[in-house]
């Protein structure tokens, strides 16, 4: 063979391999960041009530909920953030006095 064929294969498979590995690394890093910001790591499927406040929840009246599937949602930010599947919380946290609408 000549060097061109080997160079072609090397460039193609090297680039695709690098892109694939980088993509997996970015996905893993993003998942870790999202996990950290939602506080999913501090909640468990068996937790009950609004007491399980997420690590990233710093404001008043915000709590993380984890359903049985492991997905997380937060309450306290208005109607769009209500969990869809049977929230574990039994009561809605009251809005803070100075809360934005």
């Amino acid at each position, binding site marked *: 063979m000549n060097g061109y064929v080997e160079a*072609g*294969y090397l460039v193609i498979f090297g680039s*695709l391999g690098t892109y*694939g590995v980088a993509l997996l690394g970015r*996905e893993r890093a*993003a998942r870790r960041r999202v996990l950290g910001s939602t506080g999913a790591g501090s909640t468990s499927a068996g937790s009950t009530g609004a007491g399980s406040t997420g690590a990233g929840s710093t*404001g008043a009246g915000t709590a993380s909920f984890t359903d049985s599937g*492991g*997905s997380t949602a937060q309450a306290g930010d208005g109607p769009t953030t209500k969990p869809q599947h049977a929230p574990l919380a039994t009561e809605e946290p009251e809005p*803070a006095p100075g809360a934005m609408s």
Partner: protein
Amino acid sequence: MSAGPVSSRPVSAQTRALPLPRPPLSGALGALGFLALAGVVATAWLGLFVTPPDEFMGNLVRLLYVHPPMAWVAFLAFGVASLASLLYLWPRTRTEHFDRLAGASAEVGVVFTGLTLVSGSIWGRPTWGAWWVWDPLLTTTALLFVLYLGYLALRRVPGDFEVRARRSAIGALIAFVDVPIVYFSVVWWRSLHQAPTVLNPTTRKTYVHGSMAWTLLLGFVSFTLLYAWLTAHRYRLAKLQDLEDTEGLDLALRERRAEGDAR
């Protein structure tokens, strides 16, 4: 590509319900990745060590097993991006998933187009005596690469989610116009590049046979599987980035609320 800074993005319960610890279809995606990897390795092995050299091109023909499959995948990726963009623009099917899919597919398509250009250049040097010639096929392919780079840049322009997604979708459809031009350029104009080996649009014949044909077919299938795997992961990354943007917005809102409490 990332959706970029999102200023007034609607917070959907669907986005919030992303299963973080183990995303759905992880097992299927892993199997797809394994199949793609096995196929690509088999293609490389057959292409480099098993198939015979060509009567005219000699060993250079071995680039045939990777160069056309990558060009095919680039076309497929841009086709999927255009279809997803079209579905996003149609009000009945407008969801953020199609916007994400278009972005993910286009990014993978850009990678494959870039590699098509590079591998073609490596093939062209010993065949034509030049790394690059301003041939219609090469020029329109380079234009395709630039057009979709522009599309990816357009996706990163900050702004309202709806506006950004709509203009990106229109951009993807405009860029796709170049795809048939690339494919038929060897037929429409006098080109240094040879006409398609598989399913020649003029003669409707295939000019590869035997083990070479099977290896080429395996290359097409393997790279298509690889495209699907890469696009699925790019889609998941985009989804996580969107969620991250939403969380950032929520955090900022919570901080403002806390400031309001303190006063």
